[in-house]
């Protein structure tokens, strides 16, 4: 699809959603695949409601997300007065403080006359006064609603009459540290997502889906769509020729790392495959490979060319995604070791320690030029539900605008074949699609064409 066609098709869906908002009795749900313009929609919907004279409360999940949204809204709609409800120790980030039309306060009374008030779900939940006595908004916009737990929605639902829920159904489900099957199958299971509970209890709420991804390149959108959104496909907004990755320097010789990066630059994907071995979670060789690949992108001077123009791939535009926190810590240590080893990797744009190394949970909603993924099943003897979860793989495989390099031990397809998903099926719990096992197989099948033997 050309960028122009994509814009037309996205516009049509947005218009339909806004029209639906005007006549909805209870609310509207919008499913948004990775990078499909979710924030744009939230901003447009908030502005459209505010123009009609409705007061709107906006619910984000983290302070970071809330600030991002405010920045977008304040920039796009300079006249709209926006209230930022925050905790005691919140210091407005520079990107918030620079907007004259944004007021940050800790008490809702100071913001009640603002057409738009934004806060995290946790902050909204602390508002005093329930049902009849406290403040109330005709409309709420809930962002990242698939990552919000239903008990969190329960705590704020008395604040609004109608709501627009926006989120990505393919990403990680909310989780709890408590393991219990006590509420499985209940219509209000507090551990399931806010949208799941909302739709079970209100089956007549309309669900829309955004059709194009602005982030994912043409090499990635079909793969991610087929593996993780089997029933709600989407396309890339750009065509294959629109994006490219170039290098400022030639490599000395061609190491397996350079080969992997070249493959990823040419085709959007690479599988850097280490020899088969059962390893600890913090597999030293795999962790080193991740750090080395990131360092190599900086050393070689990668340049990203896209419809937005040319730009250098700086350290902050590279992410290394992992499954566990101890893996993220190990990657950060490996990056620091590289900064110490190569003095050239400590300039402002090439500071390799500024490469974002984090877990899938914390990379949700973020965007980079190049991502490097330590495959959740790499080096494992078994495939548990945690490591098979489709949402985790989907997050890791859909953060990039240009290229994604997967680092893994050989033998993942065999591991999958040996561990078909054996999760029990519970009465009253809808079967989840896509199945993690199936999504992993589909993803690995695609990667097989971009395999680069590593560790040689």
């Amino acid at each position, binding site marked *: 699809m050309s960028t122009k066609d994509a814009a037309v098709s996205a516009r049509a869906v947005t218009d339909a959603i806004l029209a639906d908002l005007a006549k909805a009795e209870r609310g509207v749900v919008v499913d948004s695949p990775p990078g499909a313009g979710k924030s744009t929609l939230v901003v447009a919907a908030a502005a459209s409601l505010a123009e009609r004279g409705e007061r709107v409360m906006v619910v984000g999940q983290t302070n970071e997300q809330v600030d991002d949204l405010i920045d977008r809204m304040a920039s796009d709609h300079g006249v709209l007065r926006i209230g930022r409800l925050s905790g005691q120790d919140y210091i407005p980030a520079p990107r918030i403080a620079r907007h004259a039309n944004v007021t940050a306060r800790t008490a809702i009374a100071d913001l009640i006359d603002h057409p738009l008030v934004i806060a995290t779900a946790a902050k909204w939940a602390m508002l005093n006064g329930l049902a009849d006595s406290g403040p109330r908004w005709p409309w709420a916009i809930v962002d990242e609603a698939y990552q919000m737990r239903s008990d969190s929605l*329960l705590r704020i639902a008395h604040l609004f009459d109608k709501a627009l829920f926006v989120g990505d159904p393919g990403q990680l489900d909310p989780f*709890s*540290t408590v393991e219990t099957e*006590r509420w499985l199958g209940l219509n*209000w299971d*507090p551990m399931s997502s*806010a949208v799941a509970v909302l739709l079970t209890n209100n089956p007549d709420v309309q669900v829309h889906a955004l059709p194009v991804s602005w982030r994912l390149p043409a090499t990635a959108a079909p793969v991610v769509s087929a593996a993780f959104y089997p029933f709600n496909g989407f396309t890339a907004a750009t065509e294959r020729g629109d994006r490219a990755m170039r290098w400022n320097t030639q490599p000395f010789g061609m190491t397996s790392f350079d080969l992997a990066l070249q493959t990823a630059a040419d085709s959007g994907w690479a599988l850097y495959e280490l020899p088969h071995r059962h390893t600890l*979670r913090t597999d030293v060789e795999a962790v080193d490979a991740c750090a080395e690949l990131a360092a190599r992108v900086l050393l070689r001077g990668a340049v990203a060319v896209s419809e937005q123009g040319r730009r250098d791939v700086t350290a902050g535009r590279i992410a290394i995604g992992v499954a566990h926190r101890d893996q993220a*810590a190990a990657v950060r240590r490996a990056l620091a070791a590289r900064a110490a080893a190569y003095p050239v990797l400590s300039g402002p744009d090439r500071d390799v320690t500024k490469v974002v190394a984090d877990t899938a949970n914390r990379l949700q909603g973020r965007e980079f030029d190049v991502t490097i993924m330590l495959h959740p099943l790499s080096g494992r003897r078994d495939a548990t539900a945690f490591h098979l979860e489709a949402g985790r793989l989907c997050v890791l495989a859909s953060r990039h605008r240009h290229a994604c390099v997967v680092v893994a031990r050989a033998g993942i397809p065999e591991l999958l074949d040996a561990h078909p998903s054996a999760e029990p099926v519970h009465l009253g719990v809808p079967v989840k699609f896509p199945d993690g096992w199936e999504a992993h197989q589909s993803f690995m099948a695609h990667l097989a064409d971009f395999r680069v033997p590593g560790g040689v």
Partner: protein
Amino acid sequence: MTVLAALARAAAAATGRALPTKTVRHVHLSRRPLVLVAAQLAGEACAPLAVLAGDDREKPHLLVVYEPRDRTQRFAFAADLAGIILSAIDRHVEDDGDPETPYPDAPQLLVPNLPHVTFLRLLGRSTRFRKTEGQHAVPPAVPLLGRWLTYYAERAEVTPSAMLVPMTAALADHWATGQSATEDANLAALLGWIDPPDGMSGPAAARAAEDPVRCPPAGPVTDPTFDNEVLAPVLQAMREAALAGDDARLARARASMDQALRSQLESTWALMWRAVDLLGGLPAAAHVEQRWLADRRSFTNQVAWIRDGGAPQARRDSAVAAARRLARLEREQQRLAVERAYDDPLVMAEYRMTGEAFAGEVTEAEPARLEQGRRPVLRPWITVATADEVLFTRGAVLKSPVRPAQQATVVDIVSPGATAGGDARTRIVLELKGGMGRSLTPPPGTVPAVGEQVTYTSLRDDFQPAPKFPDIDDTPWTHGGPPPEYVPDDEDAREDWS
């Protein structure tokens, strides 16, 4: 599996002996716990076959259901079991005390494994709504037993609670074996690794324990070969004797069924008490007493609730009740994690591995340091040298397990390369606040002295206000609106399988 857990298992496999992974016992053990081992009929959701229970290891009570598919006999069994469990409960109730103070002790229930917890939960659910009059009336003790079993099963969901303890979970928490977690769920095999018989290695003892003839399974599911070759013929003989009306034959059949089931349960009974002795050999962790106090309080409240005519536990949680319970479970679990790490250096080691804690030696201390402001405040600085990898950044707020009232803020971190003299340790400068009294000179011991070994961690158990939830009558439309008021009725007693 974390690196330390993997290492412990590898070491256990190499030496053929389980390795203790905790220095102290993190679970409360009563002086006279009530031990319960059950067997249930295969293929039925909750058809008890037999139970061996009691608080005297020499004299367990054996209860057998001679016709497990007969509901009348099933409830007669429940009444007998109530006799054992309710009398243990009654022994702990003191009626003359102040209603606000918890009873001095509570009855602790020990079972072999997690499936036993499920078994008790289902047994509780199938008995607590039974009517004591009219058609299909049951003895009054039956619904009461159901309420208590439900109470125990719900308490088992609260991780810090020790009211109902599955023994395999408690043992596997304190020892690492060289076998998989699934194999650890077998009580006999697990004990084989921890405490093998003389002259036998752990793996050999575990292998021997997997022979269902020598070591019948810990239940509640019985050995299928036992079902086919022993149980089925005995049940058949009993049925024929009953049809023939031959009392002597019936008595013989009953005796042989008693004998058969006792043989299945007795070895697990003995293993349970061995496990009690092994766990009891470890000193209790510092917070165990406090957690047991919470259990005693909960038990006291439950006694009062039943005595004051409170309704039995509802079959399902409403939206609000579910969210409230989840919030409580999460808070309690977090608190437990902090307490365990504070109580046990081996638990803290896990956090040191992931950079959430470090241990080292105090190399410099400025105990009387004042921060000048409108009025001076006491803010001592200390420097800790550690060989651990430190992932904290400046401004991180830490705590030390030995001084929980004191906050330590990271002021500076000096990596080993930057210090002269070739010391390969990282130096962390900490600013201390609180836990030093009100004067401007800290009392001795409140500020770590030079040379003291200290541990600091970002793991904290700070006070958190209880989350607010709507009243049940204000359940919002997103969660289905307010539910109808709960009135226990006959329908509650009906199960999908009944």
